[in-house]
């Protein structure tokens, strides 16, 4: 069965500092990987996705993620965090035509 682990429930980062959110997955085949962001009271917005090819993928709002098959990881990064990035971030794994399995999320807090 597929699963996603986001080991950090909360992370606090100073504004302007770099960010890395961790995601580890378990999947029997080549996975499709996604990062979504959820602001309070909102639905999920797609940040970026990986299907195949270049293992470093760029997304919206200056985010990027790197797929590392050997580590079963798909960590999300941003070089400089803005206060508006405060939200909950979800990593998800799936495959073509299948449902997504989500992690429990990481809440990002941005301090001034």
């Amino acid at each position, binding site marked *: 069965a597929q699963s*996603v682990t986001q080991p950090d429930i909360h992370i606090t980062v100073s504004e302007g500092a770099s960010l890395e959110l961790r995601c580890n997955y378990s999947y029997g085949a080549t996975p*499709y990987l*996604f990062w*979504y962001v959820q602001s309070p*009271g*909102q*639905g*999920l*917005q*797609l940040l970026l*996705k990986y*299907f195949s090819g270049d293992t470093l993928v760029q997304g919206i709002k200056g985010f990027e993620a790197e797929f590392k098959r050997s580590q079963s990881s798909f960590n999300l990064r941003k070089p400089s965090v803005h206060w508006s990035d405060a939200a909950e971030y*979800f990593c*998800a794994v799936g495959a*073509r*035509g299948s*449902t*997504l399995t*989500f*992690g*429990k*999320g990481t809440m990002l807090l941005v301090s001034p």
Partner: protein
Amino acid sequence: EAGVAQSPRYKIIEKRQSVAFWCNPISGHATLYWYQQILGQGPKLLIQFQNNGVVDDSQLPKDRFSAERLKGVDSTLKIQPAKLEDSAVYLCASSFPGPQETQYFGPGTRLLVL
């Protein structure tokens, strides 16, 4: 392009009452999903439709939850009777079947059962 629409955005009911949620997917998206997101957790799939047929409803509590997508476009999710543990956000998502299929989510319906 319009996104996934959901209504209502908020609903408060008492236990044992019934409630219904509506979802209109992105135009042309054949696949529609309903997820339940309990506070502090990631979304969990309830049911997946391909056009008007059910693909996966293995995690739908069928004694109280039902869903339909009669014309293969919009969909309704119903809970009858509601329990306290049904308090959650109900998210609808849609996707266009293909090699790089991506799910796009609506704003969700926040349900509180008292």
